């Protein structure tokens, strides 16, 4: 919520002043600042400070395993990154996961939303089954699918073999492992897309479709001329959320493959985790995290521009 909308809200209240506002006896602006202060302080403490601290640490050689105090090294950590093949590989994997799973989840999510919007007699079972994948913690989903795709005990290979195909050793090849991860992410995230799109679908007036029916427009035409254009705002919102979380992909590949085979399914977030939590190289880990932060900011800015030009 922006400052102006809060100010408008307080304006409306001004007309019938409650006892406590008279007691406070503040003008609009100070009151607004007072009301905003807790949220601002909280955000500053839990977001602004850590991010600044992260950027600051990225200029130091700070490794807990060296037993040495932090040493200022300027841009060395960033320079190191450029020669680091694993950094490039994990960044590429992250981008690839984003490019595959965001459109994938959008398509599946849209289909699910359209199905859930069909006139079922009882709607709650449909809605509930939409909610479940979204409500499941990411790491649980990762563990469950790791078993689904297990080469010997997994249900996926069982079905493949029953259908007469050969079982696949999913996590033994970068391609199959990557495919398994992307499928899992799409399964996990498309229900979130569907929920937002479903909300958008329900705001579309039925009269538009009735008018289209009268004009003789077919089902497909109605979808492309009415449903899709009116859904755009919901889709953009869903895309922003999904893209940011896709860039931060960690839990599912971490639980399913641990980044393997080799480092072929490792993501940037996993590499940051490895450098900070396993290697205790906080300087380099911070520099990597700054890069990921910049990447997320760029994408968000692009999307926000898209919305603003729409308005």
């Amino acid at each position, binding site marked *: 919520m922006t400052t102006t909308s809060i100010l408008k809200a307080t304006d409306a209240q001004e007309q019938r002043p409650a006892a406590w506002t008279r007691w406070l006896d503040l003008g609009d602006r100070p009151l607004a600042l007072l009301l905003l202060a807790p949220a601002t302080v909280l955000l500053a403490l839990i977001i602004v400070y850590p991010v600044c601290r992260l950027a600051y640490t990225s200029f130091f050689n700070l490794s807990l395993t060296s037993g040495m105090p932090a040493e200022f090294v300027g841009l060395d950590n960033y320079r190191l990154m450029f020669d680091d093949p694993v950094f490039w590989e994990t960044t590429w994997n992250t981008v690839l996961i984003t490019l595959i799973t965001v459109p994938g989840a959008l398509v599946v999510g849209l289909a699910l939303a359209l199905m859930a919007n069909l006139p079922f007699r009882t709607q709650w079972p449909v809605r509930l089954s939409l909610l479940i994948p979204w409500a499941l913690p990411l790491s649980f989903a990762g563990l469950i699918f790791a078993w689904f795709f297990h080469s010997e005990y997994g249900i996926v290979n069982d079905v493949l073999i029953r259908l007469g195909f050969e079982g696949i*050793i999913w996590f033994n*090849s970068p391609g199959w492992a990557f495919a398994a991860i992307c499928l899992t992410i799409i399964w996990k995230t498309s229900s979130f897309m569907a929920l937002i799109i479903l909300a958008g679908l329900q705001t579309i007036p039925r009269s538009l479709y009735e008018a289209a029916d009268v004009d003789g427009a077919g089902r497909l035409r109605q979808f492309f001329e009415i449903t899709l254009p009116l859904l755009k705002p919901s889709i953009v919102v869903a895309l922003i959320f999904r893209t940011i979380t896709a860039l931060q992909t960690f839990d599912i590949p971490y639980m399913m493959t641990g980044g393997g085979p080799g480092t072929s399914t490792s993501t940037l977030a996993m590499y940051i985790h490895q450098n900070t939590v396993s290697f205790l190289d906080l300087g380099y880990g911070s520099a990597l995290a700054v890069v990921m932060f910049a990447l997320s900011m760029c994408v968000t800015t692009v999307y926000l521009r898209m919305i603003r030009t729409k308005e």
Partner: protein
Amino acid sequence: MTFSKLTSLLLCGGALAFASPVFADTELKVYISSQHQPDVWRKALDQYEAKTPGVKVAIETGGNTSEAQAQYLNTVMSAKDSSLDVLILDVIRPAQFAAAGWTSDFSGKDLSGYLPAYVEANTVDGKVVALPAFADAQFLYYRKDLLDKYGLQPPKTWDELKAAAKKITEGEGRPDLQGLSFQGKAIEGAVCTFLLPYWSQGKALVENGKLTFDHDAAVKALSLWKSFADEGVAKKNIAEVATDDTRKEFQAGNVVFAVNWSYAWAKSQGEDSAVSGKVGVARLPSVEGGEQSTCLGGWEWGVSAYSEHQDEAKKLVEYLSSQEVSKFMAINGALLPTYADLYKDAEIAKAAPWFADALQVVETAKPRPVTPRYNEVSEVIRTTVNAVLAGVVTPEDGATQIEARLKRILR
């Protein structure tokens, strides 16, 4: 819930929180990983509680691989969390923990009764930073009954092993019978997987803190493991196999030869084992014309530098590291003793007859490189072994990658 109920609940909770320390014993929390038989350690701890009034010991378990445990402990320790008092540490970690200042020293502790390898692993810059929990090394487990059936002796070289495994699996004709199981997943054990045939060629990885990487020996080592997978001696998805998978599959009777640590013995002789009484343990084979070498394992007890019960925690660690507990764990958990004398102990010999020969193996086992940056060294080796076994990179490229990345770490 109404407001008054909530308030009374809070009041009660507050009263309890203030009241309890008055009556409570000192509660120590010991971190033991779930793969290290916490149930057996629990019995040793019960004995300690019985003879030490005023001290209660709780076990916290977590992580079934060495790296999972290290990650958890890294998080706890870098947060300076005081909730853990005593920690079990893989033999490769005391150096890192000491460098980070996470363990308390045992100043003046005399280590002379322990096996020399563990004196070395627990002494960093002249300070005793942890005490040995148990010794370990990798061994070759084999199916005595199957080897006898085909008139074979335990193999001395990897080539002999390959031939024997083929003969048995072909003779048995069971599609689910694996010739050899070893660790190909990108876990700590895969570092040893790489080092076994590398060391066997008489090469060292690090000498006096300097990288002494032998490219040809590394290619040969990686090619050897890959050949087991390619020739069907090991199963196709060997790149997914972790230590406990090897143990479970061997115990289920689906493996002829297995590379594993000492703990697998007690389980293989257990009630739910399909191979009880049919298992032999031998030294690991060598490469043709090389020496039989094995990886030094073992775990250590450290006291957290952030523990609020330093004295009690150190006393507990002295007990856990004593001859008495070492013997108890050897008999009940098949954990190798850290004292040379115990290998000749009659009761231990009854529980695990092969321990008598194990002393020589432990004494000649080679330690993995000792460096505070070991986690990075380990990651490079284990992910490359994993990638080679999965066929993502060739043994040649794998060796080149290991060399290039180790150079960066150990520069």
